[in-house]
């Protein structure tokens, strides 16, 4: 087996938990991460927290990105974190974005979400953060 030409790309799972149909932001973020050289597994809409965690395990991702604009983030994001702990996935960070009030963002960060981004965040900032917090940071 030949040695790798260069380090393997960071693998990121981008998923939308729950019934929220606003997928523009998730797609924009997925493309930005791709353009930054990452491999983005786009799981799409209507994912249960269970779906997200099992996809993260099978795909062996270095980072999980959750997007939610419907207001259900406080019901869904903590459940993803809890399931990750239950499955003993301790080294895969989670970040998120969407319509998330500041107060909720603070609570989510306390629970372990590494970063939360709202409307109008520059894609550059998202990419920089992804690189910094991914399991295999590059």
């Amino acid at each position, binding site marked *: *087996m*030949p*040695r790798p030409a260069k380090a393997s790309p960071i693998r990121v799972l981008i998923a939308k938990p729950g019934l929220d149909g606003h997928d523009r932001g998730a797609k924009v973020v997925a493309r930005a*991460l791709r353009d930054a050289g990452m491999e983005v597994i786009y799981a799409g809409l209507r994912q249960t927290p269970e779906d997200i*965690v099992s996809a993260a*395990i*099978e795909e*062996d991702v270095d980072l999980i990105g959750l997007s939610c604009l419907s207001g259900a983030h406080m019901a869904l994001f903590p459940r993803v974190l809890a399931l990750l702990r239950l499955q003993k996935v301790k080294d895969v960070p989670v970040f998120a974005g969407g319509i998330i009030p500041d107060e909720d963002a603070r609570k989510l960060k306390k629970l372990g979400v590494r970063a939360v981004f709202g409307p109008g965040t520059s894609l550059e900032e998202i990419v920089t953060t992804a690189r910094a917090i991914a399991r295999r940071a590059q």
Partner: protein
Amino acid sequence: MTRRGSVPATPGARAVLNGDRRALARLITRVEGRDPSVVPTLRSLYPRTGRARVVGLTGPLGVGKSSLINALLQHLRAEGHQVAVVAVDPTSPFSGGSVLGDRIRLDRRADDTGVFIRSMASRGHSGGVAAATREVVRLLDAAGFDVVLVETVGSGQVDVEIRDIASTSIVVLVPHLGDEVQTLKAGLFEIADVFCVNKGDLPGAESASRDLLELAGLGPGREGWRPKVVTTSARDGTGIAPLWAAVNAHETYLDSDGRRAAGERRRLGHELVELVRERVARDLEERLDSDVEVGTLLDQLATRAIDPYVAAERLFATLRADPTGPKE
């Protein structure tokens, strides 16, 4: 009982054999990253492979390959199969990144351990799969999945390399693909064991499958097998059972007259050549910078004292004479 040449199971290999999904996923990542430290694990798993049916799905962009895999997944799970899916998507030549979107189409219960889905980027490899796809399929085989479905990139070109990985290949087309079929035609029959005309719920499916049947009848048929033509709709589930029956018919055909063994031998031959090629290339590239002998050859080449063809012959001769012998 240890077989001759068998290698003690590494901790990674044991974890995979025990059904540890995270260990399997991490091993796949290392194989994809061409991490040489994974070789002992691959070696110890090799005797456990060769049992899975490996079925390729190839065809132009958006014809419904992932949707068909989803429909097949449900069908195969109901039949009690353990099914793994490897879905390959292209890597952007500009950024080196990719969006792997095939998973969107795949519905499965999160707690169903009889299914394992892995997305792969092509990472610059041409031919419709990634350089590591074959080895990843083999890992899934060792892990006990008895059917492995492989979705190729779907570039619009014929993804020929699936022939070196799958025992049965399905070429997926859709109605009104007239021109595209014309351009694909040359390669199509090299690959297709089964033609699937998907989106059969749309008008034109019947004439498309008639055309294909005619084409399939005209061709010589690869090794005496005439490709089957099946019309499906991944949307409403029509034709999925017949599609799998066509795959089985081909697999049964392979089991007659030693064809499976011959096909396996041919695939292993390609793999062996590829491994040696990689090994030799790596060796030579290292020697390019450090080896005195090679340095002399390069000097002579630069001053036109010898030509590249003679230099290549001399370099090759040093390889053949390498006294270090085979390494375990």
